[in-house]
């Protein structure tokens, strides 16, 4: 029995071993081939070499476009494409197309990040830093993804009347984001705008490593409250007699001295950036929060608004009324504006909160201090009760 088992194990080992060996051989090609080899093994690499051996459309006579195939001074094959165009209101779209490899559906998916469309280009005359030409990969559902010449990938980083090699990395078409099926590409189109006269030749797919460098987005997420709105933040509108810091060294109290009929009557607004004028994502905290501050001296209505960097509405606001403020002693009020009390607060882009702005609407002489965006656990319509609880 033990012997049988041993024979079985050996047999199994032999079978497994040989299977393993076979499968290694099967995958050897893909696992060890270089990206370059993978692109070079792509069967439909040549898009245009010369007119006779290529599939092309858009070359017929047109009032706004002339396409020719001159033999002289070509890079590959017997001739190249020369195209001269002038866009007018009568010809909004000008283009040529290459349904290369006889319209077969081309699968570029596996080589999207390791290949590029390469071609040679020269201007008929002069030089240019950019050309109004746009390249599109079109799939069999008619969807297209665009890219264009980037001077970084132009030989010599200039375009002029000598042949220059250009590569457009396939990844710059961003096919997935445009819904283009890279596994079933029908054609390459080139669209022309405004005017120009260029020669093109040797359009093909080549190995190319495109280094994608993405910068991280600016802005930050508010992790916890309170957010102090003091002189450590960036303010605007404080350069008048209307609004100034009580003591610059203190930086927590603003003197408001506004006269609707005074010479500074137009300087009735000021604001504070929540995050150095970048966005501050308040989406996780806004619903149970409020803007709070203290007034010392005189009470008067004013408008408090929160602004976002983008989205609509860009601004939500609330008028400060006596219902928002609790008088704590002679000439001193503690005020709270619950965020849920701002009109349209549900529609506001809380991911992109940027500024709190105060507009003085009435004559006032007071000191505004302890300005904060803080946690609020109370009824949005009854801030007075919450303020009373805070006082206890």
């Amino acid at each position, binding site marked *: 029995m033990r012997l049988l088992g041993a024979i079985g194990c050996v047999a199994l080992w032999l079978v497994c071993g040989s299977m393993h060996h076979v499968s290694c051989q099967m995958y050897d090609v893909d696992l060890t081939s270089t990206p370059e080899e993978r692109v070079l093994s792509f069967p439909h690499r040549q898009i245009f070499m010369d007119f006779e051996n290529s599939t092309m459309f858009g070359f017929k006579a047109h009032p706004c476009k002339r396409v020719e195939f001159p033999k002289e001074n070509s890079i590959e094959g017997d001739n190249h494409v020369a195209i001269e165009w002038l866009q007018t*209101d009568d010809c909004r779209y000008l283009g040529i197309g290459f349904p290369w490899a006889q319209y077969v559906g081309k699968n570029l998916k596996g080589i999207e990040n390791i290949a590029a469309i390469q071609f040679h280009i020269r201007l008929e005359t002069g030089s240019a*830093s950019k050309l109004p030409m746009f390249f599109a990969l079109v799939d069999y559902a008619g969807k297209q993804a665009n890219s264009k010449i*980037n*001077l*970084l990938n132009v030989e010599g980083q200039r375009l002029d009347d000598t042949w220059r090699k250009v590569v457009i990395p396939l990844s710059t078409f961003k096919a997935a984001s445009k819904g283009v099926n890279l596994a079933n590409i029908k054609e390459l189109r080139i669209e022309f705008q405004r005017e120009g006269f260029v020669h093109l030749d040797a359009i093909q797919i080549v190995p190319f490593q495109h280094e994608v460098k*993405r910068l991280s987005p600016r802005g930050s997420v508010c992790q916890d409250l309170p957010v102090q709105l003091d002189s450590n933040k960036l303010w605007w*509108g404080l350069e008048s007699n209307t609004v100034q810091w009580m003591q610059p060294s203190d930086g927590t109290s603003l003197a408001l001295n506004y006269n609707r009929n005074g010479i500074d009557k137009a300087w009735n607004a000021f604001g504070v950036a929540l995050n150095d004028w*970048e966005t501050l994502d308040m989406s996780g905290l806004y619903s149970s929060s409020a803007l709070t501050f203290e007034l010392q001296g005189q009470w008067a209505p004013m408008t408090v608004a929160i602004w976002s960097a983008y989205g609509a509405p860009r601004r939500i606001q609330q008028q400060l009324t006596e219902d928002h403020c609790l008088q704590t002693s002679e000439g001193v009020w503690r005020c709270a504006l619950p965020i849920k009390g701002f009109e349209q607060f549900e529609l506001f882009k809380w991911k992109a909160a940027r*500024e709190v702005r105060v507009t003085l609407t009435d004559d006032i002489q007071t000191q505004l201090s302890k300005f904060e965006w803080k946690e609020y656990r109370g009824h949005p319509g009854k801030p007075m009760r919450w303020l009373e609880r805070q006082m206890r």
Partner: protein
Amino acid sequence: MSKFATQRIWLSAMFFVAYLTCPAQGTSVVLNSDSSGWHLMRNGAKHDVHGAGAKSHFDILENAGANSIRLWSTNKSALLDSAHKRGMSVMLGLYLRPERTGMDYNDEYAIQGQLLELKQEVLKYKDHPALLLWGIGNEVDLQYTNTRVWDAVEELAAFIHEVDPHHPTSTVLAGIDPAKIHMVRTHCPSIDVLGVNAYGSIERLPLNIRRFGWEKPYLVTEWGVNGPFEAPRTTWGAKKEPPGGVKASTRLRRYQEIIAADSSMCLGSYCFLWGQKQESTATWHGLFLSDGRATDGVDAMHKAWRGDWPDRRAPSIQNIRLNSLGWRKDHVLLPHSEVAIDIDLEDWGGELRWQCALFPESTSKKTGGDRQQSLQEIPTTFSQSDEDGISFLAPEDPGAYRIFVTVCRDERACSTANIPFLVKR
């Protein structure tokens, strides 16, 4: 011939050659400030910018008293030569792709490729004798979310300072707010002049420039009447465009009371648009009609720049009515009903002719002055209803339309007005 005379001829020839070659060496433009404020000095002389966004009609522009044009990009560089021939300067735009057109300012490859292109444009045009200052980007802040665009603006501005110390740099904002001013101030220290496109917001521009903390000079790089995006709308969403005469008066007032009045910080302006374009309507911003005829807005700019009116002023439509209701009202009509149009006109003589045209209402959702398609006129018969009025039959098909009236003096100088209306059963 004496030796002295020979020397004189030789010197004259030298001066002539120098004169011919001077333009190729460019001009020197600097910013000065004194107790009266900021000044733009061009070749040592004060250069208050009396400008327009112009691609054509240069003879009329020159006659009206302008001294500068604004180009939004280097695509039509021949216009630099056209301006130079007339002694005008050019604010030359370097077109930075705005985020709203798909540009990704987190994509280093796209950013650096674009900057490389534009740096080559700078080197190409920096010595052009018409160049006044650079306009880096136009309204890149419109509907943007990524503030990294300001790093691109700064890189170009710093590059310009390095290779072209003779021309100031500017960037053009779509109106201002505290955040944009902060961004330009802190991220773009190499920007010398702030360009602001301001339509309705021009009314508070001098105040806001100061309130938001901008301390360098500024130029109003696009201005005119309130834009379609600021206009009151009908209940069906059509924008109400003021008649030509009202727009001309608004232009003149804004120039005199806002732009010219802020001489301490404002270096001048470029009115929009010395030409014609479709933006909601074919007549909203343009100071010319699509067939090239000038409007009463051109006369207003003549008055603004020169201080007096031109000799042969265009007529000026002050009000337009449909069935006795003015342009501020909503007009809902029955299909195939008879409609009377009349206008209030100020005129200054000459032979006057009316022209009416019916168009479908624009459905374009484009923003920021992006290109919009022109509309096709709907063939309509107009008949004289009485001495001052014209009538026509409303279209049979329900929908939104707009009727235009144009009055021209001697077939040349015109005023237009239009009213949107809804045909509803």
